[in-house]
């Protein structure tokens, strides 16, 4: 028997970086893993050697990333027997992480990723309206309801991402659902910023409920339009927040471009 295989989300989070040597990229990956709960509060991180190998970065780069995360209060290192690096989840994590992720993304990159998210969601909605089962539709409706009723930004972000993944699964598409899971890692953490506002959570839930209704009714074009409008509005809100918060000196970019 071989070693243990893990989930797609973990593969995305802990896979090799295509821009090796960048501390900020390692920090963002590890912070995302904590924000998504894939590294739970109190969990022990794999050894530095193991993590460096997984990310395909130099041990020095990984140590710098861990130092930065220690400073942010997300990683705690204990020495001696039973020692190691452990995960801590500060209260402010989700919004702080969302801002850092958004700030680390150059505007054309953010636009491109937003376009991609709209494309994946739109295609998923259109196909789901033909292919979803009644059980899929019920599931989509209940996820939309959970988003509308979410009491904090992290819960809202979680249900938003789960809705998009369920939509892609209802479309019966392996590729779309894989992309939706990728976007849960690369894009969804930023949603914590817009969902800090309860009105936006309620509005998001209402609009996703409308998508679920379109899917139920087999209205493919309308399902695509409604979900694409929502993803565009979200992207617009995020870009505005970005230009407002990205004042010089307040960015988290440890390595200026």
């Amino acid at each position, binding site marked *: *028997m*071989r*070693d*243990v*295989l*893990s*989930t*797609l*989300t*973990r593969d995305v989070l802990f896979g090799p970086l295509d821009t090796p040597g960048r501390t900020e990229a390692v920090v963002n990956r590890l912070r995302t893993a904590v924000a*998504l*709960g*894939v590294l*739970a509060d109190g969990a022990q991180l794999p050894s530095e050697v193991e993590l460096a190998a997984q990310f395909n970065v130099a041990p020095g780069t990984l140590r710098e990333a861990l130092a930065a995360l220690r400073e942010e209060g997300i990683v705690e290192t204990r020495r001696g027997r039973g020692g190691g690096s452990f995960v801590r989840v500060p209260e402010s994590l989700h919004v702080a992480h969302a801002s850092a992720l958004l700030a680390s993304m150059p505007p054309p990159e953010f636009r491109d990723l937003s376009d991609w998210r709209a494309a994946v969601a739109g295609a998923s909605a259109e196909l789901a*309206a*033909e*292919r*979803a*089962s*009644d*059980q899929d539709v019920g*599931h989509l409706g209940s996820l939309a309801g959970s988003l509308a009723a979410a009491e904090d930004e992290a819960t809202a972000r*979680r249900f938003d*991402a*789960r809705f998009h*993944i*369920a939509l*892609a*699964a*209802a*479309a*019966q*598409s*392996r590729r779309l*659902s*894989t992309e*939706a*899971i990728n976007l*849960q890692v690369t894009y*969804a953490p930023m949603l914590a910023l817009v969902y800090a506002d309860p009105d936006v959570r309620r509005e998001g839930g209402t609009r996703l409920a409308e998508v679920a209704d379109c*899917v*139920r*009714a*087999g*209205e*493919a074009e309308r399902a695509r339009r409604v979900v694409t409008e929502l993803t565009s509005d979200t992207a617009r809100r995020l870009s505005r927040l970005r230009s407002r918060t990205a004042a010089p000196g307040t960015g988290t970019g440890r390595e200026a471009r």
Partner: protein
Amino acid sequence: MTQDDVDQGTAVARAVTRVRTHLDGLAALLEGVREPVEAGLAAAGADVPALGYRELTALLREVAAPHCTAALGAAPSVAGVGCVAQSPAEAGEAFAMVWWVSRNGVVSEKRHDLNPTSDAFYDYRDAEWFSVPRTTGGFVVAGPYIDAWGTDDLTITAGLPLRAGGRAIGVVALDVATARFVGELTDALDELPQDAVLVNADGRVVASTAPDLSTGLRLTPRSRAAAGAPAGTAVPAGARGWSLVLLPGADAPA
């Protein structure tokens, strides 16, 4: 009744029998895992329903590993086998799942994310392969469906209830190697004189010889649900809610 009708009836009966044989094969495979796992749990001497999920997971892993890995090695049309239980002692919130997969002939254990507060949480509670055996006490073949956070692919999963200490604690389940399994079912339909579609209880295509109806599609798309199912003759294909739909072809007898 013409000779053509008789020939067609025989061909349909033969196709249905072949489909049923494949399903019975899955049930027998699961039975071959369940029996020794239940015996192993009984022999462990623990009060299984009273265990917390950590202890339950450890015990399941130890007891099930040899039988699940053996089943994977013996059946090339199976891609994954495992046991999934909910600790009755921690109802609803704690999960015990042990799973093994075969990729290119190499067997590995697969860990799912079972933390309910994780964004990658594999929530199988409402999945048909898990919920149906628990409510009916019987065998189920679920899918095809996209198994997000599980296989992350188009999947067909069979399940059988698992009991311990006189209580239902979960299921033993297997994922078929979808392409291969569907290929075998499609072969069973190939002998029919016209296009045929094997659909599950939801009306979703499992296997098909009709060019525009591939595995995973609905026989009737949602947008055309009001117009009803396409013209065709449906024959029950096994006791699992599946049916074989014979589509009227251009050259089919009127």
